[in-house]
């Protein structure tokens, strides 16, 4: 099975969204953060493990489902923009949380 590059790209986006949701969710809900920590002993390690698993599974699924042909430049631009926007969301969230 050949994993398509577009599949890897969209898996990277989904994984970054997952990391952002786990991060914000963990800060807003202490029980959720505790349950994350209970998986590996530390909430951050759990986020890392979950992101690796999600990326591997999604790459296999989307990589098989999406054709290799397609606009790779568009995929790359969306991944790059998503990373910068999601990083700004995480930074903005922690700024808000600190001053709120």
């Amino acid at each position, binding site marked *: 099975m050949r994993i398509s590059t577009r599949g890897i790209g969209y898996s990277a986006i989904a994984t970054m969204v997952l990391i952002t949701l786990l991060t914000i969710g963990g800060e807003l809900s202490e029980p959720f953060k505790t349950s994350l920590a209970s998986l590996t002993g530390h909430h*951050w*390690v759990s986020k890392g493990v979950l992101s690796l698993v999600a990326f591997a599974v999604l790459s296999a699924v989307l990589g098989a489902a999406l054709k290799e042909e397609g606009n*790779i430049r568009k995929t790359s631009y969306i991944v790059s923009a998503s990373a910068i926007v999601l990083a700004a969301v*995480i930074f903005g969230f922690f700024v808000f949380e600190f001053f709120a």
Partner: protein
Amino acid sequence: MPDILIGVHAALGELAILASLWVFVELLNPSQERVKRAKIGAIAIVVFLFASWVAGGTYYVNTYGPSVKPIIKAGPQPWAHAIFTETKEHVFLFLPFMSILLLAIISRYGAAMLKDRSMQYAALALSLAIFLIALSMVGMGYVISTGVRAGLEAGAV
């Protein structure tokens, strides 16, 4: 004495930054040789980022959390942890996945880049995004260090 792992984490991260800049420069005007070197650079980014993740993660869990975080939080710059460490530790997780995509693009479309500029732009955009986000990690690391120093100077712990 500072934990050696924080130095290893920083050094590996900086090597990944240099590698991403290397890939970007090689692909500005691609040739067969430059694409070959860009692929080596992309492999280096993946290796350095994953190694930096392991080194930094081990330090974060075993040393930073129990010993360093309390100093920052009790000092005059608690925001150094609350905003910058929290952001850094989570945004860093984006980088390994972006680097895998960059390697996939260069591996599969390296030859096509010589004729198709859209493939070249795909790799350029991604290597630039990796470079900028990884560079922001260095800046945040500096802010976190000032938070520790300020806490120690204030006799926070």
